């Protein structure tokens, strides 16, 4: 039998062909998973609006139950957050909220949250990105099927906030390549086994490059990283301060398609 990964996916693959191919892979993997392991999600946040947005997305996750650890980076929960958290509790998601001072770094917050978590696997989510409803379940199915130490997504969809535009980037090379062993995945989509995360020192204690910290240490320890398809996740590039530029325009280069607004499809939970 031909392995599902060998389905040809390249630059000429259209969105509907991509979704069709992905559906096959997802179905096969999902049917293989007998029992879902305990999963913890770690989330650090500095912006109340982003927290509202990500909690609403987490509420819609199809993975039945998991644990959520929220690291408040010098902000407070507001009424809306509290309502969302109680809704999360009702649908079987255990929520734990930790507060961190202004001086804490992103790395220390995430590492601390990961250490306090109890799941067999730890997922990192970023509060300003967009996740489809099957995001967590797809990652768990993939990590079990591939027997990988880390699973994460390719970068196929990027939302450029200043242009209010989603670009689709699909190809066999670079960060766009899907369904392969790699040393890189999108940071906002990391799912790591507890053992691999612990021996890597989780996310370190830096202010930036926390994802690279984990991925490179996993690789150095001989761990295996599987990069799955990117559909179901949209990486966001927001407005930046005027004095600081990130060159988001680079994502326009070689993009296969661009659409105004968030990409509308069930896989992103936008339709």
């Amino acid at each position, binding site marked *: 039998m031909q392995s599902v990964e060998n389905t040809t996916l390249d630059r000429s693959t259209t969105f509907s062909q991509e979704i069709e191919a992905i559906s096959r892979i997802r179905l096969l993997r999902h049917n293989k998973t007998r029992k879902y392991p305990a999963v913890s999600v770690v989330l650090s946040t500095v912006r109340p609006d982003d927290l509202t947005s990500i909690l609403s997305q987490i509420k819609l996750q199809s993975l039945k139950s998991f644990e959520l650890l929220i690291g408040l980076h010098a902000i407070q929960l507001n009424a809306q957050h509290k309502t969302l958290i109680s809704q999360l509790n009702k649908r079987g998601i255990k929520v734990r909220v930790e507060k961190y001072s202004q001086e804490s770094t992103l790395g220390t917050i995430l590492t601390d949250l990961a250490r306090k978590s109890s799941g067999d696997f730890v997922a990192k989510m970023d509060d300003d990105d967009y996740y489809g409803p099957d995001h967590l379940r797809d990652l768990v199915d993939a990590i079990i099927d591939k027997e990988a130490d880390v699973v994460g997504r390719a970068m196929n969809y990027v939302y*450029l906030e*200043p*242009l*209010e*535009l989603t670009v689709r980037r699909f190809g066999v090379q670079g960060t766009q390549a899907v369904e392969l062993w790699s040393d890189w995945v999108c940071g906002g989509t990391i799912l790591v086994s507890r053992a691999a995360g612990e021996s890597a020192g989780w996310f370190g204690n830096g202010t930036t490059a926390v994802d690279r910290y984990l991925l490179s240490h996993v690789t150095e320890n001989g761990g295996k990283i599987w990069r799955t398809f990117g559909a179901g996740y949209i990486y966001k590039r927001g*407005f*930046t301060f*005027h004095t600081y*530029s*990130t*060159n*988001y*325009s*680079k994502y*326009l*280069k070689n993009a296969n398609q*661009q*659409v*105004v*607004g968030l990409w509308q499809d069930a896989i992103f939970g936008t339709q």
Partner: protein
Amino acid sequence: MTKKPIFRFERPENLPLVRTPTLSVAIITACRDGQEKLNLLMASLAAQTYPKELVSVHVIDDGSKTPIEIPAIAPKKSKVIRYKNTPSSWGKTAATNDVASTIKADVFWFVDADMVFEKEHLAHHMKWHHDGDGYAVLGWKRFVQEWDNSPQKAFEMINFGKFADMHSESWVKELWENRIEKTADLLHPGLDGYRSFVGATFSIKSTLWKKMGGYRRELVTGEDTELGWRLFMEGIRIIPERRARSWHLGYSTVESNKELIDRHNQPSLAQYIPEMKKVRARTSNSWVIPTYEAVIDVRNSNLKQLQSICSGLTSFPGTQANFILLGSWSQLKKRYSPVSDRYGDLREISNWLKSENNVTFQEEGDENLKIEKILSRFTNSPIPFHIFIDGDFDGDFDGKLLCDYLLAHEYGLVGLATKQDRRAFAVFQPALARSISMPGSIYQNLSATWGVLWLTHESFVAMHSGSKFRRARAVNFLKREGKKVNSPQQLLIFTKKLFSVLLHKALK
């Protein structure tokens, strides 16, 4: 299910005649003498197949020496409106506007009083208006030099399907037909497709006529051309209907008095039609409607950057721009000292430009500018191109080139993003107007109706430089201009033009 938005100027193919029409139509014609030709027109209107109960005819008598009468052969609901002439109300434009504003009907069909129509002419107009809103329909016509003055005979020939046999000799306006041909019946009108809009036979929904405010009252002639420009800029689909046939009795006044008409029309129309670049290029005068409207975010830029953007946009002869500068202008009122001025750059811009007629200052806070908010700053008016640019755009910004690209690729919006996260984009007015008229986000509507494309500034520059691009452009120029050479005088014009372009390039 929601109706799919109309894409660009697309329209259904082979639209059939409507079996059971429901829309009423008022036929409006203005005349000043010319009863004989009118009799033929009325006979041809009486022969129309479109249901008579839905038709009314309004003949405007604009001060004829012998009062105009409704002839014996005419549609039942026909009447003459005697337009009382005063110093401020005379002529076809004023008469048509004033009378049309009192008529109630779903559709207005405007016709010249020296036309004779095939019997399905009106039905072919009306099929479009039954298909939807946002159409302006033009009839198809041939010119004849001689004709039989018997209305009875005309009625019979038209009624018995012998319309084509009425004349054995007739002429077309080649320039007009060539343009229709070249633009695929105005499906791809470019920027000069509006020139096809002539007043001899056209119809639009009465609501659209009212929205447009009818003809521009200041114009005594050429009012149809100017209306055509505004309809085009409104994103209206102008349909030259080849099956709506007609005879035009005699040459039009434009043909027989070309020089006098040009002397009169060119500057008066160029006031409102920026596409009349050649007329505009003859002087450095200001005109009513500019070529560009540019919204510039100057919150983080200085005078020099702004000047470079502005002069770049208006460097070509015959182009003119309005500028809307976004800044925290209210901050300038606060106490300051010239030697420690936090708003020094903004103040310098204001001090230099505050008396310019084509510059307006709009208040903007500190927040990030969303595309939708920028789009809402544009003026929905017949300015063909709207441009937004960050005042501190890194790299050379060529607004004209961006608009050329937008037009050539028929997008509604083309944007450029730079390495330093700065933005610039150009929007095509027909797309903007239609997007504003629809519910929902203008930006989303632009994408659905005309298409949106973002490029990196880097790739845009690369695409427009290099020897290959320059050679292609030079060949195009020589081909286009060379075609016009058909006399020693034209050769001189061509040589002069070539020389001025070379000089322009050399001095750049």
